[in-house]
């Protein structure tokens, strides 16, 4: 049987392609019913424990931390608390939050209000990637409409609960997607991630208890409320409950976002839903969870989309759910170099291993992928990479404040793991190694 999507978070936007972002269409299709249910029938504790924790929902931004558990770390009786919405989608090849913001802003707003009620926050900030101009227009309009209908603001739906939601546009910085980088940026600073602990739940925005949740995570919350945490937990596989939106791109026939029940195989996602490798070519490798995740091979296609399986058994990660597909014509060195160039560009410069390491990796990969490599280069990369990620084993150990540092090593580790023979042969064939050879760029 042909594999199928399981559309929960993306159902409405697909069924109403012409007006899903408008409040009339959203309300006519049941938007804000979960909010009413949460505010009138549930206590914050019930939402947190009996619904969201019970659902097994894990963060959809990349780290996969339990959402209800994250909320429960808020210290008792410390107020004000804040909710910060991470809509700074920037992990290369991820484009799901972009779609959710543009095409179903009311679902997101509903999730924000329910979550703020559950964590007893009265101000929420949506940190929206600056480049999402249409998304900003749509969210701004959606917020104004939601305020006008008393879904946001004072005394929401006569419940006595108040919430202000502030839309805040970023200005171009990948590292602002790190949750503490995001908080710094929201405070008007450079987006340099903070040392943890203290975690944001204890000291976050303005040093107050803060929950940072991803757009897809929050967009899922209304469905958990409407159909119940137990229902959601019944979907998916093992500790990867529910559905996730996978952004599939690269050399596939039908690039796009596909919402599937976790536990589906990579093969069904890539070949069944995205149409397989374009033009009848062979798959060379794929990246399963964004630029930060180590790469996988055709032999891994029958593995399940299970966060723990991919991490423990495949030594990679499902990360942000971005699946990049590369056919047989692709040079893995070129892909590795381009990703390393990205990390070098986005490194904020706070931690030495990342600041220095990322640009060293980029320079060595540049020469390797542009005919100037040396036979010892791959070993050189792995040797100094061991200072960024001690042991070079997934899940990556960290010598830096945020995950950007170790992410720089994913392409390198992948080259060593899967393409060593090919690379060694090519490097030997490249120009003679000499001690005085200088790389010109």
């Amino acid at each position, binding site marked *: 049987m042909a594999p199928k999507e399981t559309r929960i978070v993306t159902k409405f936007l697909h069924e109403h392609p012409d007006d899903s972002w408008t409040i009339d269409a959203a309300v006519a299709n049941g938007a804000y019913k979960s909010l009413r249910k949460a505010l009138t029938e549930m206590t914050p504790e019930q939402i947190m424990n009996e619904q969201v924790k019970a659902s097994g929902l894990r963060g959809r931004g990349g780290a996969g931390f339990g959402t209800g558990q994250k909320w429960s770390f808020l210290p008792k009786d410390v107020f004000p608390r804040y909710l910060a919405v991470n809509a700074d989608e920037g992990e290369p090849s991820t*484009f799901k939050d972009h779609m959710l913001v543009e095409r179903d802003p009311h679902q997101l707003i509903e999730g924000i209000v329910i979550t703020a009620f559950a964590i007893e926050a009265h101000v929420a900030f949506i940190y929206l990637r600056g*480049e999402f*101009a249409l998304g900003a227009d749509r969210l701004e309009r959606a917020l104004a409409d939601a305020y006008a209908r008393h879904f946001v603001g004072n005394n929401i739906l006569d419940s006595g609960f108040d919430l202000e939601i502030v839309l805040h546009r*970023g200005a171009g910085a990948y590292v602002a997607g790190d949750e503490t980088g995001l908080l710094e940026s929201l*405070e008007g600073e450079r987006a340099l991630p903070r040392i943890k602990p203290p975690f944001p739940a204890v000291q976050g925005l*303005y040093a107050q208890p803060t929950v940072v949740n991803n757009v897809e995570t929050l967009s899922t919350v209304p469905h958990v409320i409407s159909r119940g945490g137990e229902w959601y937990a019944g979907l998916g596989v093992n500790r990867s409950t529910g559905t996730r939106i996978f*952004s599939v*791109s690269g050399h596939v026939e039908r690039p796009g976002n596909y919402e599937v029940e976790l536990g589906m195989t990579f093969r069904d996602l890539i070949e069944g839903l995205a149409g397989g490798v374009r033009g009848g070519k062979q798959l060379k490798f794929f990246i399963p969870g964004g630029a930060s995740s180590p790469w996988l091979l055709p032999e891994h296609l029958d593995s399940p989309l299970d966060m723990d399986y991919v991490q423990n058994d495949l030594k990679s990660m499902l990360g942000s759910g971005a699946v990049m597909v590369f056919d047989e014509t692709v040079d893995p060195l070129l*892909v590795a170099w381009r990703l390393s160039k*990205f990390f070098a560009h986005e490194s904020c410069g706070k931690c030495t291993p990342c600041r220095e390491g990322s640009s060293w990796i980029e320079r060595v990969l540049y020469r390797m992928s542009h005919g100037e490599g040396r036979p010892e280069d791959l070993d050189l990369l792995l040797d100094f990479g061991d200072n960024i990620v001690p042991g070079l084993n997934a899940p990556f150990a960290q010598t830096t404040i945020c995950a950007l540092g170790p992410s720089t090593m994913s392409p390198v580790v992948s080259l060593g793991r899967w393409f060593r023979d090919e690379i060694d042969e090519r490097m030997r064939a490249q120009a003679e190694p000499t001690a005085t050879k200088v790389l010109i760029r």
Partner: protein
Amino acid sequence: MPFTDANVIKARAIIARYPHAKSAVLPLLHLAQDQDGWVSRDAMEEVAALLHIEPAQVLGTCSFYTMYKREPVGRLVVSVCTNVSCLVNQGPELLAALRARYAGDDDVFVEEVECLAACDLAPVLQVNYDYHGPVTPDAAATVIDEYKAGTRVARTVSGGRVA
């Protein structure tokens, strides 16, 4: 130029949204760029004055973010993605072609950018933060020329809507 009277009112409304005024640095820099087409030294000083912080603090934040242009860039910012999904879909070739075509054009600023979160449209670019993709170099040039001619309405160089 200094904020217009209308933008000073807007700026004060933005500042009032935040528990701490400094949070308004990013939105005020967007406002300045919407108005002037870039972020001048004078604009940073004015933002600093509105927030009661030092101009160097505003510069420190401003210089971290790629969307703020601290030199005039012309009316149209064309951002071409070359990250990996675009890399394998002729993104670099698109960038090179547009750079060559608009090399002497003061209206059009072509820049290479990181992933724009629209990989289903690869190769993709933005013109003042509106998406176009997938596009060939010729199709992209047609779109850009329509913005230049005014037959398409461009956003501001900070992605704001034109009043």
